[in-house]
């Protein structure tokens, strides 16, 4: 008995230290962030839809404490533990996520995320929204990419243009560009990152041995490398006939072990069917001859 209590205490202690070691800290300046607009009932409604689609699978229905059994537990967001946090804190958590919670930075727009906060707050009668602070207008670079294949140079030419202060468009110099080629699953980077020159151009060599589709076409995507997210960028997509023409049947288009029933290897079909037919043929024969015993009786 005493041992058990001790054991449980140790467990609680270690469990406690374990979670505290992984606490989810929100930087102070992020906590202070407030929504750029006043929450309206309409936004709360939109937020509810977003919540049901993106959050409810883990956090459950608000106020029902029926969250998914994950570690760490997601918890019910209508409860005090979530509601005592400031708007900026909640917003930050939705934006960044923490395993197993996904980051919603690229899934929900900033507006969407604020709408969810607006919805969450409807479960807190004591909540008073702090005064909104409108976001300063965007002052960073707005870059658009385009892509061509130059036959003479045998190179892919990516052109970066940007919006200038005076509203005109001009070449964007010094922009880092990454080139990807699409494959079965996801994308593969081609070559290194290139920086655009004064004319806004970045040149890429395309390897001679990469397979394309049966016409030799490969699908490419050029993107701006902007890990800090300080620009607004538009990637470029294009397809060129510069790959090695390859005709490979799909994985289930030929007979194989792994394929579906209609594509079973012939030898398996034959072996299986023959074995079944032969053995069950004998079984039927035996049943038939058993029935003969009755007929052979005298008297």
């Amino acid at each position, binding site marked *: 008995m005493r041992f058990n209590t001790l054991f449980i205490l140790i467990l609680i202690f270690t469990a406690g230290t374990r979670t505290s070691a992984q606490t989810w800290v929100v930087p102070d300046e992020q906590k202070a962030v407030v929504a750029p607009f006043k929450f309206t009932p309409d936004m709360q409604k939109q937020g509810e839809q977003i919540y049901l689609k993106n959050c409810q699978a883990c956090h459950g229905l608000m106020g029902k404490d029926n969250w998914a059994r*994950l570690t760490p537990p997601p918890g019910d967001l209508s409860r005090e533990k979530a509601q005592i946090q400031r708007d900026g804190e909640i917003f930050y958590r939705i934006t960044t996520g923490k395993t197993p919670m996904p980051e919603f930075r690229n899934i929900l727009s900033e507006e969407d995320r604020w709408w969810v906060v607006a919805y969450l707050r409807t479960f807190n009668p004591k909540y008073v929204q702090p005064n909104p602070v409108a976001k300063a207008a965007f002052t960073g670079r707005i870059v658009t990419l385009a892509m061509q294949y130059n036959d003479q140079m045998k190179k892919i030419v990516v052109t970066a243009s940007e919006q200038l202060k005076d509203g005109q468009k001009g070449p964007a110099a010094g922009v880092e560009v990454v080139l990807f080629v699409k494959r079965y699953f996801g994308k593969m980077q081609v070559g290194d990152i290139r920086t655009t020159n004064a004319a806004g151009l970045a040149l890429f060599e395309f390897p001679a041995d990469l397979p394309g589709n049966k016409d030799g076409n490969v699908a490419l995507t050029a993107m701006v490398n902007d890990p800090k997210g300080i620009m607004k960028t538009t990637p470029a997509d294009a397809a060129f006939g510069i790959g090695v023409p390859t005709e490979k049947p799909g994985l289930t288009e030929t007979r194989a072990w792994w394929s579906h029933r209609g594509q*079973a290897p012939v030898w398996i079909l034959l072996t299986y069917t023959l074995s079944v037919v032969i053995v069950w043929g004998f079984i039927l024969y*035996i049943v038939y*001859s058993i029935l*003969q*015993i009755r007929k052979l009786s005298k008297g």
Partner: protein
Amino acid sequence: MTMDDNKLTFDKITSDLTHHIRINKGFLIWMGFLTLSLLICLYAYSIQLKTGLGVAGIRDYITWGMYLANFVFFVAASLIGMLISAVLGLIGMKWLTPITRIAETIAVAFAAVAGLVIVSDMGRPERLAYVFIYGRPQSPILWDVTVITTYFVLSLLLLFLPMIADMAIIHRKVETLPSWLRPVYKVLSLNFTDQPAQNKIISRAIRILLILLIPAALSIHTVTSWLFAVTSRAGWDSTVFGPYFVSGAFVAGSAAVIIAMFFFRKNYKLQDYLTDMHFDKMGKVLATVSLVYLYFNINEFLVPGYKLKRADAIHLQELFAGKDALLFWAVQVGGLILPILFMLFRRFRKPLPILIISIAVLIAAWFKRYLIVIPTQEHPFLPIQHVPGNFIHYSPTLIETLISVAPFILVLIIITLISKFFPVIPLHETAQEKGIGHIKFD
């Protein structure tokens, strides 16, 4: 034989081997007990049907739990029919005659129930037919259901054919027979009157069956082993899994036969037919198959243990010195090594000692299946992350345990019914072997 063979008459043999065919109090109590236990287990199953497989301890990682271990065990135990009747029978071992039907009964009972065991692991059992309708001939699962069905039918026929003559004798000669049973035996006897033409049909059919039984039985357990071995998991990814499973099956089955022999001999007073010699011989059979099984065990652990690939190392560590070590060593030592050592001595092949050894072997055989199926799933190649604790460590629930007990009760019911209403020892064959000549059918 303790009895003077000359004194054996046909009537004496008939009465010795059929006097138990009547409904007595002991039988009713035993069947009542079995039925009640079965009902309790079926209630547990009804909960699973209603609530879903979540009532069992299986989760996303350990998806094959006790049900699958049970399934492998049942398939294994059913294999004994093939060893006794087909392999040893075709070689022509005469001492087997009184044991063949016991072995076939066990084979039929376990094979019939093995199919049901797998249903206990299905979330939507009403879709069982889909296994056939949508089965892929590339999948060992389809082969498995095919061979198990086939083996069951073969075993049933092999149980029935030698019984035809017995039933002809019983419905004519046994006066003590309950009156309502007599017409049943008459129908089942197929008007057998010991005509040479009839005997010829029966013996030819039996020969065909015995020959078919060998590949069928080898396939059912080899294919069952492939359900595991075609997966690249530590502990399953093995090329000797087929013979490993088959030899293990013979161990479990021989033990089951010895246990059944003991109880039939005592309850149905068959001491003159199931003699110490039979127990001695079966003890030797069990020792032999256990040695073969030991050999495969050594292969299974020594070869991966020598190379110690990462996943194998984790698996073997858990078995040898980790969480499963106690069970593992109890099974290997108590269910394999010690029994082999004991069985080397004639003294331990007497009925009572060999019964105790067989019970230990059979229990160990069940836990061995558990150790083959479950531990490796707790260590998949991809790490397990961010899941509740009960996803990581499997422990069977009470409901799951009750559902796993049900097949055992079913097997006991089937064996009890077959042995109660038919001679446990082939009547006609025994009489013929004793040279008592032909039965006169009037």
